[in-house]
C-alpha cells in the first residue's frame, strides 16, 4: 500500500465477511504475499506456522502505513501523530481484550512475546508469593518458555517443582492430579496446546482444581489462541500468555493477560518511562494498570499492525479456523498413517489435538529430512522444538514437525507426503 490511507480504510480492504461462506484456504493463501514466493524453483509450501505464521497483506501494509503516516511515541506527546499512534496502540489493546473473551483492557499487558509474559509472572508474582515448602506444578509437555522460568524460580526459592506426566498417547495423565496439585501448590502453569504433540489439554478441569487448592493458574496460550476460540474468562485462567507473531501479527509483540486483582498487587518487573503515568487522555479505567508493566517505548508498530491481524482472524472466525485445521490435520494424519516408514507422535483424536504434527522417519534424521524437503520448497521444522525434555521423553533427540494454519490446503499436505516418499528414494532406503 502506498500511504495515504487511514486505518479504517486498511480495515475495509480486508476480505469480505465470510460468516456462512465456504472456508476457502486457497483464497486466503492469496492474501499472503510470501506464499506465492518460489523456493528453489517451486512454490513455497509453508508448514511451519507453529514457529511463526506468515502475514497477510493487511498486516504488512499496516506496518508500512504506520511509518508513513502515524509514527510517534505513545502516551508522550500532544501532537496529532502522537495522538494517532497512542489511539491505535490502545485500540489494539481493546481488540485483544475482546478477542480472548471480553476482559478488561487493564488486564492486557503488552510484552515482547509469550516468553516474556511468562517470565513476568514468574519474576513478579512468583517471588512475591512463592517460598520454600511451596509447590509449583507444570507439565511434562511444556515449551522451554513455560519450563525454564519455573526451574529457576524453584531453584531460587526452594519451592518444589512437580510435573503432571504424559501418557504414551501424548495426553496429560490426570490419574494422580489430586495428589500432584497438593494443598501447598501456589501456581499451576500449563500449555493449552502442545507445540510438539498438538495435544489440547483440559485446562478448565485443571484450573478448577488449582483454584480449589488456593493456587493460581497460568495458561500458555501461544499455540491455542491463534488456532481456536479461547475464552479466558470461561476457562477462568488467572494468567494467559501468547505471541502476536504466531497469529498473523508482527514479531516483537506478546500479551500477558492477568486478572486485575492479581496484576494490581504485582510489582513491576522493569522501571522507567511510561510505567509511571503521564497520561492525558481520559480513558475511563486508566489507572496504574496496564502501564505499570510497560516501561519504556514499546513496539508501537507491532501493536498497530496486530489490529488488522486480529480483524482478519475474526472475519474468518476462530471456530471456522479450528474446524478447517481439524479437518486438515485429520487428512494429514491419515496420509501419514499410510507411510509405514513414518511414526507420528501425539493424540489421534482430532477433538483433542491441534495442527502441530510431529513425526520421525525410521531411517532419515529430521535434520536431513528438513533439508531435503526444503529443496522441494517445503518448510517444516526439525529439532526438539524448544521442548527438549519432552522430546527425550518420546525417546528421540529430535522430530520433524509440520504445522498448519488457515492458509494451508490439502495440496500442501499432498506435497509433504510426496516429499517424504521422495526422501526415501533420495537417501536410498527405497
Amino acid at each position, binding site marked *: 500500500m502506498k500511504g495515504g490511507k487511514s486505518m479504517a480504510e486498511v480495515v475495509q480492504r480486508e476480505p469480505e465477511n465470510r460468516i456462512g461462506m465456504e472456508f476457502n484456504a486457497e483464497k486466503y493463501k492469496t492474501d499472503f504475499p510470501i506464499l506465492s514466493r518460489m523456493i528453489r524453483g517451486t512454490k513455497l509450501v509453508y508448514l511451519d506456522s507453529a514457529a511463526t505464521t506468515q502475514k497477510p497483506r493487511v498486516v504488512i501494509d499496516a506496518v508500512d502505513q504506520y511509518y508513513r503516516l502515524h509514527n510517534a511515541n505513545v502516551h508522550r506527546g500532544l501532537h496529532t501523530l502522537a495522538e494517532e499512534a497512542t489511539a491505535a496502540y490502545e485500540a489494539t489493546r481493546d481488540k485483544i481484550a475482546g478477542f480472548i473473551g471480553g476482559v478488561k483492557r487493564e488486564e492486557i499487558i503488552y510484552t515482547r512475546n509469550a516468553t516474556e509474559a511468562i517470565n513476568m509472572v514468574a519474576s513478579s508474582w512468583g517471588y512475591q508469593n512463592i517460598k520454600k515448602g511451596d509447590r509449583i506444578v507444570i507439565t511434562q509437555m511444556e515449551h522451554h518458555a513455560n519450563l525454564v522460568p519455573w526451574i529457576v524460580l524453584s531453584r531460587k526459592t526452594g519451592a518444589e517443582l512437580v510435573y503432571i506426566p504424559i501418557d504414551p498417547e501424548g495426553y496429560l495423565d490426570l490419574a494422580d492430579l489430586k495428589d500432584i496439585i497438593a494443598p501447598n501448590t501456589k501456581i499451576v502453569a500449563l500449555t493449552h496446546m502442545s507445540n510438539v504433540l498438538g495435544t489440547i489439554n483440559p485446562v478448565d478441569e485443571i484450573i478448577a482444581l488449582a483454584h480449589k487448592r488456593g493456587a493460581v493458574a497460568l495458561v500458555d496460550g501461544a499455540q491455542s489462541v491463534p488456532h481456536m476460540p479461547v475464552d479466558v474468562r470461561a476457562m477462568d485462567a488467572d494468567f494467559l500468555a501468547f505471541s502476536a507473531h504466531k497469529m498473523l501479527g508482527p514479531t516483537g509483540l506478546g500479551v500477558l493477560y492477568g486478572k486485575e486483582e492479581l496484576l494490581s498487587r504485582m510489582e513491576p518487573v522493569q522501571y522507567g518511562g511510561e510505567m509511571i503515568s503521564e497520561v492525558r487522555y481520559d480513558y475511563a479505567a486508566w489507572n496504574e494498570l496496564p502501564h505499570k508493566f510497560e516501561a519504556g517505548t514499546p513496539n508501537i508498530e507491532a501493536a498497530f499492525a496486530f489490529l488488522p491481524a486480529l480483524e482478519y482472524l475474526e472475519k474468518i472466525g476462530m471456530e471456522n479456523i479450528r474446524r478447517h485445521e481439524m479437518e486438515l490435520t485429520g487428512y494429514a494424519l491419515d496420509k501419514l498413517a499410510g507411510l509405514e516408514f513414518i511414526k507420528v507422535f501425539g493424540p489421534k483424536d482430532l477433538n483433542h489435538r491441534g495442527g502441530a504434527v510431529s513425526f520421525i522417519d525410521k531411517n532419515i534424521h*529430521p535434520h536431513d529430512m528438513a533439508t531435503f524437503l526444503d529443496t522441494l520448497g517445503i518448510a517444516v521444522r526439525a529439532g526438539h522444538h524448544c521442548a527438549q525434555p519432552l522430546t527425550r521423553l518420546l525417546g528421540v533427540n529430535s522430530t520433524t514437525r509440520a504445522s498448519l494454519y488457515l492458509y494451508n490446503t490439502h495440496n500442501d499436505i499432498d506435497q509433504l507426503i510426496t516429499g517424504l516418499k521422495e526422501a526415501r528414494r533420495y537417501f536410498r532406503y527405497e
Partner: protein
Amino acid sequence: MSDNLDDLYRDILMEHYRFPRGHHHLEHEDIHNEGQNPTCGDEIELALELEGDRVKDVYVSCMGCAVSVASGSMLAEVTKGKTLEEVKKIAATIKAMLTGEAVPKDADLGDLEALSGVKKFPVRVKCALLSWTTLVNALEAREKGKEKAPSTTEQ
C-alpha cells in the same frame, strides 16, 4: 533440484553415515568428551586412547543427522595414528573450510574434503563441526590440565 543437495550428501559422506567408523568402545580412555547441538538436540560422545603423543584409537558415538554422524566417523578415521598437534591442525583446517576462511594449500583432507559441500548449507555447518569442536575442547581442557572438559555445545 538435487544438484545442491548432492553437494551436501556426497557419496563418501553417505557411506560414512551408513557405516560409521570408531564405533567400538576403547579399553583405555585418555581423553573423553561429550557434546551437543542445542538447536537440534544431537549428541556426540567421543574418546581417544593415546600412545605418548599419538592417537592410538578413537571411539565416536553420534546420535545425529547424516552430516554430524559422517563428520564424526571421518574424525575417527583420520585422527587415528596422528599426533595431537596434527589433529588440532586438521580440526582448524576443517573449521576454516566450513566457515569460508582460507584453507592452507598443502592441507591434505582426504575423505574430509567431502564435508566442503556443507558450506553451502549454512544451517548445517554446526552439524559438521559438532564432533570437531567437541574434540578440540577436550584437547584444550587437557592442555590446561583439567581432568574433564566442560560439555561442548556447538552454537
